[in-house]
């Protein structure tokens, strides 16, 4: 019984962890100019999530300043400026 309970706790805690995926953060690159930087590397994120994070960060829209992409592992980064 103890073994079953332990296994159940492990499975439930593992599932809880899976329900809480972590997005790659948006960093402030220049606070005065409202310039931000984010990545959307890997399989779970893509250019769509970079754009979604920029939309959520900027209330009045944003301007893409630079996008970089490296084929080794789907490395993607975007520098953007929030509109005032």
């Amino acid at each position, binding site marked *: 019984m103890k073994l079953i309970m332990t296994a159940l706790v492990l499975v439930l805690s593992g599932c809880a*962890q*899976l*329900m*809480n*995926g*972590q*997005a*790659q*953060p948006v*960093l*402030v*690159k220049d606070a005065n100019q409202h310039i931000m*930087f984010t*990545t959307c*590397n*890997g*399989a*779970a*994120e*893509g*250019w*769509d*999530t970079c*754009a*979604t994070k920029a939309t959520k960060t900027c209330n009045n829209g944003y301007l*893409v300043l*630079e*996008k*970089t*992409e*490296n*084929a*080794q*592992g*789907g*490395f993607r*980064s975007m520098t953007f400026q929030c509109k005032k």
Partner: protein
Amino acid sequence: MNNQIKLAVAAALLAAASSANAGISIPAGDWTLDIGGVVNAFYVSTKAPGASSAANIGTGLLPNVLAVSGSTRQNDLDVAFVIAIDPGGYTSHALSGGGGQENRQSFFSFGDKSWGTIKLGKDLGIFASDAILNDMTLLGVGTGAYGAGAAGNATTTLGGIGAGYLYADWKEQIAYTTPNMNGFQATVGVTQPYNTIVASAGPTGGATSGLGGGSTPAFEGKASYDFAADAVKGRVWVSGLSQRLDGVTTVPTGYSFSTSTGLAVATGSVAKGSQTANVEDIGASLSASGFTLTGYYYNGSGVGTTGVMDNGLSSTGQKRDSDGGYVQATYVLPTATKLGFAYGVSKLEAASGDSFTNYKNERMTFGAYHPLTKHVNLVAEYNNERVTTNNVQATTNTVALGGILFF
């Protein structure tokens, strides 16, 4: 003191934020060095035609990667370099050295945002690069998983390569990329010409070539346009490749024995000549409200299938036509898990001298990709691959579970 600490923290954050790969950044004099890469492993269960299920553990479509890059500003130019080593994870027998090894990237570049960038060295090919970069199995497994006791030290599986698009490959190149002009960007370049071979991933038979492009390199180019409306974001792209195939050797139709030497001598159409292979593609990817839909199509002549130039010529040296493409739909759940479905097909038409009438490779992929942390993705994929030759179909099913870490 507090101000100094704040400045140091701000500088470190800025350096990290400026890193293209968001790896480990190290200021080094005039240079900013970045160490980045990928580590991945998958449990793969494969059921191939006429074989019992095979269980293997190995790397997916990407090998492991350790890349060192650097960037600086010198004499009003942005200067950068990348050198990477790419060890695979799959082994099938003892004392085999721990897996295969690739060397995919080693290039430097210089330029300026006002006029563009020139790149010299080995990097992802220009033609069909967007096709593989938009493939959801790029960081998964896809097709071409290892069979039972498969020989050698394979570094990767194939993802959607050969079942929806041709492989852009890692090529020595000299390329010019324009500045980004309101979302429009183009790249043109000369790349290392390839020989055509008779590869196992394709129909049997065919001519080969041994002199690359002769006196000319391969020519490649692409153009893309990124756009973002209020609710819809996306990219459209086109690319192409043209290359002369020199030193084409056709397959002999038979053998006779020399009366003087007693050795076998090839008879029939053994000849050397040249052909010019061409291929173009077009693709688009649209995203809205967590959904992303991608469509891609290519059409070529003499470029073969799976690998560029592989199986491109018939046994009499005639160009085979090839085309294919894929559609892919993904959706991001509130848990940040991405679910995806893809269907791809690559076709190769028989030419004069071929013993087959048609060749087709299709795949269906269902995938789930979960960001366990910001640098670790868990991956689950089911893949169904159907290879049809002369209307006879062979089906391979694959289930893959694993993960990938990128830094």
